[in-house]
């Protein structure tokens, strides 16, 4: 059995090292065909071809070099365009001069003449950026301001490559230019990385079946992985790096994505995107570590069913069904994701996408709204927020499987609880304001909501909360702050579910008479950092908005003190009862 474990570990480490090696493994050859295929505008194509002339003759051996070449080329094209199209001092003076009585289109036509490509562009772009100045005498300061905006953004947006376009092109051109073993044999490498990791992981986990069923926490606080030792720090660093690449620098991880192209093609008919890779990894982590969880807690049917549930919802609802929907030319939709965790649910692009898809799209929109306003309150009333957080949710699913070995690292101090309450509710408020602004823009067309730009607001939310907090901190900090950092400090949906759980629910954790021995296992293994013992040792029900109902406090209790129950609301906040001496009524 020990041998099997070691073989598993070796296979896993081998697969994992190769996976990391693959990051660096390809060569890159840019071709005119790739440029023509990826850059749609023929004029921009030509410009890019001219500026990348030397690059086209060269094979790049590293993705860093190749991406830096692309950066350089885009910058050169942009500089060239700014040089060609920028509005200079002379033209500004002319406009002010000719428009000093009334400024209108004819002024632009006379300043920017004769009719050639450059002047036509200048007229149009000035019209777009400075149209609001028409109808009154031209003011030099205002004209200068418009010219400045045009030189800074207008030219790059229209005839160059702006940041957004550059980011996408860098990714797609790098992926297409990749040559070498991975491109030639994606399935082989898929097997050697994903395959070996899966097989190795299972071989490492399965021998645990040999042990007598029961709580198996031996050695956790001596473990370099589970007690923030060097291995934990390395794992956290790796995860943080992975998320930074995923969200901000996907062009560097194209080799990984090429490996999963065949799978993506067979599932949804398209090449893989970075989020296909992410979804696949995410699902595999939940499945493999879910099997570990099933074995680990095989004495507890509550834990087993809960784990099977998150494995199912991740595989079916988050991964397979959306891919199949795409294959059927339907919009991508995760039927279990709920706003405000699903923070872009009300974004104009999302709503339009659904509305453009007929009955199914409208059903999806209605379904999503029903989850928010009906399913959340009703299910939380009957079952507590656990119905979502530890049975259905994807973030919760990862936390309960991949994150389970780190649950003991959550901070239980009163101070942490105070920080948690401020932070998670602040994110809830932020998400509501952001969504209100986005909807305001959707209905009125105006991007200014009270005093903020709704586009600005949503991009700040997306970067800082969606990617930074939920992804980088939420998962990257598993080995440092426990597996529920995001759920505890950041998830706006958890905050919403928690408010209902706290004030209108049948759910509570009950304590068993006077049986608590204050050992502290419950608090230590509470992933949400609830000091469960504080309540248990005084015989008080645990009613906390943050409790996700994972049930581990009850599982690890050596005296059978804790139980997750849904009962009549009366007495939920009852006086502490500690069964003991006759004739003493204890004050709380």
């Amino acid at each position, binding site marked *: 059995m020990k041998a099997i474990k070691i073989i598993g570990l070796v296979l896993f480490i081998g697969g994992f090292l190769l996976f990391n090696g693959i990051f660096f493994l390809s060569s890159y050859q840019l071709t005119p065909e790739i440029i023509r295929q990826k850059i749609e505008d023929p004029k921009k194509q030509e410009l890019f071809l001219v500026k990348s002339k030397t690059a086209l003759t060269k094979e790049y051996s590293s993705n860093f070099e190749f991406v830096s070449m692309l950066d350089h080329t885009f910058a050169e094209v942009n500089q060239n365009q700014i040089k060609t199209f920028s509005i200079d001092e002379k033209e500004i003076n002319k406009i002010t001069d000719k428009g000093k009585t009334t400024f209108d289109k004819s002024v632009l036509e006379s300043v920017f003449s004769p009719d050639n490509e450059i002047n036509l562009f200048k007229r149009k772009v000035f019209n777009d950026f400075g149209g609001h100045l028409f109808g009154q005498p031209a003011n030099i300061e205002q004209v200068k301001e418009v010219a400045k905006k045009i030189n800074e953004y207008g030219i790059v947006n229209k005839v160059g490559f702006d940041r957004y376009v550059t980011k996408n092109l860098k990714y797609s051109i790098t992926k297409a230019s990749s040559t070498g073993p991975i491109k030639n044999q994606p399935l082989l490498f898929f097997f050697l990385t994903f395959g070996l990791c899966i097989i190795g992981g299972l071989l490492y986990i399965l021998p645990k079946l040999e042990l*007598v*069923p*029961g*709580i198996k*926490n*031996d*050695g*956790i*606080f*001596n*473990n370099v992985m589970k007690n923030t030792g060097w291995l934990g720090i390395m794992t956290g660093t790796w995860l943080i790096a992975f998320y930074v690449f995923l969200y901000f620098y996907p062009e560097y991880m194209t080799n990984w994505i090429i490996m999963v192209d065949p799978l993506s093609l067979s599932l949804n008919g398209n090449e893989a995107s970075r989020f296909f890779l992410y979804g696949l990894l995410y699902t595999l982590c939940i499945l493999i570590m879910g099997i570990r969880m099933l074995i680990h807690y095989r*004495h*507890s*049917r*509550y834990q087993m*069913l809960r784990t099977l549930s998150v494995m199912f919802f991740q595989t079916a609802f988050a991964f397979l069904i959306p891919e199949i929907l795409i294959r059927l030319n339907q919009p991508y939709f995760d039927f279990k994701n709920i706003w405000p965790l699903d923070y872009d649910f009300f974004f104009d692009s999302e709503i339009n996408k659904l509305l453009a898809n007929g009955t199914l799209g409208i059903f999806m929109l209605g379904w999503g709204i029903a989850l928010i306003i009906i399913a959340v309150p009703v299910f939380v009333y009957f079952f507590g927020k656990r119905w979502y957080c530890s049975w259905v949710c994807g973030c919760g699913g990862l936390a309960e499987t991949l994150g389970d070995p780190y649950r003991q690292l959550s901070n239980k*101090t*009163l101070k942490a609880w105070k920080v948690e309450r401020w932070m998670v509710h602040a994110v809830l408020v932020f998400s509501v304001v952001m969504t209100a602004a986005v909807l305001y823009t959707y209905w009125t067309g105006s991007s200014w909501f009270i005093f903020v730009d709704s586009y600005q607001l949503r991009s700040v939310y997306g970067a800082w909360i969606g990617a930074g907090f939920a992804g980088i901190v939420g998962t990257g900090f598993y080995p440092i702050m426990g597996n529920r950092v995001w759920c505890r400090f950041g998830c706006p949906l958890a905050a919403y579910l928690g408010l209902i759980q706290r004030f209108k629910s049948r759910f509570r954790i009950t304590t*068993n*008479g*006077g*049986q608590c*021995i*204050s*050992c*502290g*296992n419950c*608090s*230590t293994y509470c992933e949400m950092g609830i000091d469960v*013992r*504080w309540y248990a*040792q005084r015989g008080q029900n645990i009613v906390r908005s943050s409790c996700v109902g994972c*049930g581990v406090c*009850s*599982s690890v209790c*050596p*005296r*059978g003190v804790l*139980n*997750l129950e849904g*009962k009549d609301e009366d007495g939920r906040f009852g006086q502490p*009862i*500690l*069964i*003991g*001496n*006759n*004739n*003493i009524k*204890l*004050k709380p």
Partner: protein
Amino acid sequence: MSKNHHIVIIGNGISGITAARHIRKHSKHTITVISGESDHFYSRTALMYIYMAHMKYEHTKPYEDWFWSKNKINLVRDIVDTVDSDKKSIRLKAGTPIQYDKLIIATGSVSNTFDWPGKDLAGVQGLYSLQDLDLMVSNTNGIKHAVIVGGGLIGVEMAEMLLSKKIHVTFLVRENSFWSNVLPKEEAALITKHIRSHHVDLLFRSELKEIIGSNGKVTSIVTKNEDKIECEFVGLTVGVSPNIAFLKESGINTKRGVLVNIFLETSVADVYAIGDCVERTYELPDRKNIEQVWYTGRMMGEVVAQTICGNKTEYAPGPWFNSAKFFDIEYQTYGMVRNTLADAEDDFYWEHERGMKAIHLVWNKDSKEFRGINTFGIRMRHECFDRWLREKRTIHFIMEHLKEANFDPEFFIRHEDEVVAKFNQKFPALSVTEKINSL
């Protein structure tokens, strides 16, 4: 409000700390807690989990360190040398003497040892305190074989601890079965089987004769049957006794423990004693006069706090309860299930086919009054059994309502139907049809 006294508590275990907390809740008295063992209250019952690295020491502290100053409970880390009850003064090993108005002795226990040859060799120890734990960590570092002497709760915990470090354990029990002064033979057999399933060599009718060492360190032991067992560690878990040596000259009456009356008062005015170190001078039905249990310590702490705060209260614990965990099998008991049935008693034992769950019920033959239950691997509601025992319900009632008492987590397999069916088979005269009342 009575005048402000200085209450000094010796011992920061569950008894002393419960007393301190409750005195603080009910009064403005000055409170000082002295401990030689630790700076702060920690849960002694969690010592095994620190060793097994399920937790770190700080996880076993039920209150954060700021709690004590916030609640104006002074903590003194020192060892009490002597108590002078005439001068109401306590002499400390290191610090200056402390004057008290009222004194609570809550010093707990010390491990028992007997005069075995070799008991002072390195690698031979008991397990009671934090210091014992540190010693055990260093004594067992890197070793392969250990022997445990004494078949009780600390012994089985020690076995589990050693096994977590992959140390082979031989477990010597003097009696014919495991924890025989408490468990009936059926339960003892169940636990024996379970302990052996963890590959512990559990030997009955085996008594320690001699511990052998070389260079001052233990190398083997010899039993009274002249079996020699090689080992690098010997755990002595043959019970504990009240920790009262420092009271010899104090003028406070002691026997095996500090003698107290029903108000937990000692023979000297303004001196109280609570917890493990206490020996009651009055009888309580079904209870020993020295009770070394977490729960009784806690209750005594609550009671003495009432008395000190002006509400003189008797120590009158409700129906007996206790719990433990033997490796993976949880045990709870409510009421009185003796190791051997009394003449007037009848019983029913049910065991699950896989041997990880069992229930044992005892009642009075004539009155049918329910006397107690042992439950293994099935959690039961304390509140239900406490009420039923106080209400003197019959075994018939208990069987009818057994389902209500279940405290297992959701989706766990329930066995009440099977238990009741077996019970009806065995006792047709008492035959039960289930009633399910909502709680």
